């Protein structure tokens, strides 16, 4: 049976290859920093389960030290010149599109297949495993037809990842910070503070505090999942559901979506907001957040009104 372990090995080998190619790239003045960073990430993917908790923690400290002291850089762009790309696009265009669509198509088909036919792959991780299989199939099909130099995909993939830089592990770091916050009981303290600050005797005031609190605390934590238990315990359960007898399904479901509006507005949700800005090579790292605020704020207001209308 295929498990997530297979995907980690694949990811580990990919990062190891990026590290090896990176150390050989003399045009990058920071090649050793880059190679060490991707090399450590390869080690984490391949051997994380054998390093022990403290070992993994020290690995993270090393990653932070490399990135924090500015040891990560990128070579002057060795992107294929636009004329050559355009000329190749004339010849291969429709085929390229087909290969690009293999990844989502396999991810889609595999998700269903692995759920219906048990025993092939871990059904809980069906989409991630299918995504990895889609990558392998797309790569094989592309290599067979285009016949590029053997290392071209790895070199171009490394170029793209170097453009993202240390931001590539930012989402994983924030998820880990959430675990430390949980251990230290940060959520309970914030919940007590907010619970003490809301006005008494006003239903709409309580709904407003709940919706705004979900959005704000999600912005701080970067994740509505972390904010939800806190706000439910502080306002949702004692006031909206028990005192004012609101419908718990509405309070929970739309409250969570109010939190998602917060996700659109915070750099803490790095994988949605900062990583795409790096990946699209935007000049402003907060460009994506800027584009989202105009949707997030009115939608937050709508969610607060929806809770007020539908729950009571």
């Amino acid at each position, binding site marked *: 049976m295929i498990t997530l372990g297979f995907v980690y090995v*694949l*990811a580990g080998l*990919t990062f190891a290859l990026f590290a090896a190619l990176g150390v050989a790239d003399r045009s990058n003045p920071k090649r050793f920093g880059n190679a060490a960073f991707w090399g450590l990430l390869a080690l*984490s*993917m391949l051997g994380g389960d054998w390093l*022990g*908790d403290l*070992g*993994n*923690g*020290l690995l*993270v400290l090393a990653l932070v030290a490399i*990135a924090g002291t500015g040891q990560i850089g990128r070579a002057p762009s060795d992107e*294929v010149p*636009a004329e050559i*790309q355009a000329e*190749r*696009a004339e010849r291969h*265009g429709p085929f*390229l*599109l087909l*290969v690009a669509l293999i*990844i989502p198509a396999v*991810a*889609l088909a595999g998700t269903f297949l692995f759920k219906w036919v048990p025993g092939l792959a871990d059904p809980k991780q069906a*989409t*991630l495993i299918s995504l*990895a299989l889609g*990558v392998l199939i797309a*790569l094989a099909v592309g*290599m067979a037809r285009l016949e*590029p130099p053997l290392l071209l*995909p790895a070199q171009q*993939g490394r170029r*793209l990842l170097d453009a993202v830089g240390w931001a590539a*592990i930012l989402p*994983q*770091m924030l998820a880990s910070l959430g675990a430390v916050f949980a251990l*230290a009981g*940060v959520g309970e303290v*914030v919940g007590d503070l907010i619970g003490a600050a809301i006005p008494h005797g006003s239903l709409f005031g309580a709904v407003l505090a709940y919706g705004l609190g979900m959005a704000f605390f999600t912005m*701080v934590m970067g994740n509505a*999942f972390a904010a*939800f238990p806190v706000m439910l315990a502080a306002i949702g*359960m004692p006031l909206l559901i028990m005192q004012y007898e609101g419908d718990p*399904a509405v309070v929970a*479901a739309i409250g969570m979506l109010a939190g*998602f509006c917060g996700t*659109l507005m915070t750099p803490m949700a790095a994988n949605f907001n*900062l*990583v795409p*800005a790096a990946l*699209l090579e935007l000049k402003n790292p907060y460009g*994506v957040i800027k584009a*989202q605020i105009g*949707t997030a704020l009115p*939608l937050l207001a*709508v*969610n607060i009104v*929806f809770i007020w209308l539908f729950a009571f």
Partner: protein
Amino acid sequence: MLVLIGILIIIAGFLLRFNPLLVIMASALATGLAAGLDIAAIIAAFGKAFNDTRYVSIVWIVLPVIGLLEAYGLQQHARTLVGRMKGATLGRLLTSYLLLRQAMAAVGLTSVAGHPQTVRPLVAPMAEAAAEAKNDALTDDQREEVKAFSAATDNVGLFFGEDIFLAIGSILLMKGLLEGYGYVIEPLHFSLWAIPTAIAAFLIHGLRLRRLEKRMMKPEASA
């Protein structure tokens, strides 16, 4: 109260634009110390969480395929395609993607599309080409805004589609928490109550995409 110092460090660190990885580590250490943990225990807890969440970073395995296809001109081809489609305006293109992303997420297919898989190689170049078709003097700032909106559209579509799906993590979290308080609720109820917001998100963001298209049609005001 003292454990809130980690949140302050995060906010200050992001505002002062320190390297975010350093800020996160400092916040974790300060929070752990404030809660009375010793340094080794904090580092171990962080390491365990880092190892448990490796799946977050595996999306980068798509980059060699994207790199190969881009070297052979995928972005150019995506642009050419938009040029051939007569009715493909910027607003219609991104609104269609918004609807598609919401619909896919609503049936649980969240990882099928995304920033590395679809936005960078296809959606952003297509949106740029659609904007160019109406305005041949697109400025760099306008290009940047079109790309930012491509990424934003992916996020809005994902966030306000996924909660319609029954077996998504957030619904299981809500169900589990409410059961802890003695309320047993079928996942279907949470799903249904996600629909009004999904419609509102489509209308609000769709309207903003129309206005984006209008803004991109004329040269940027000199202000």
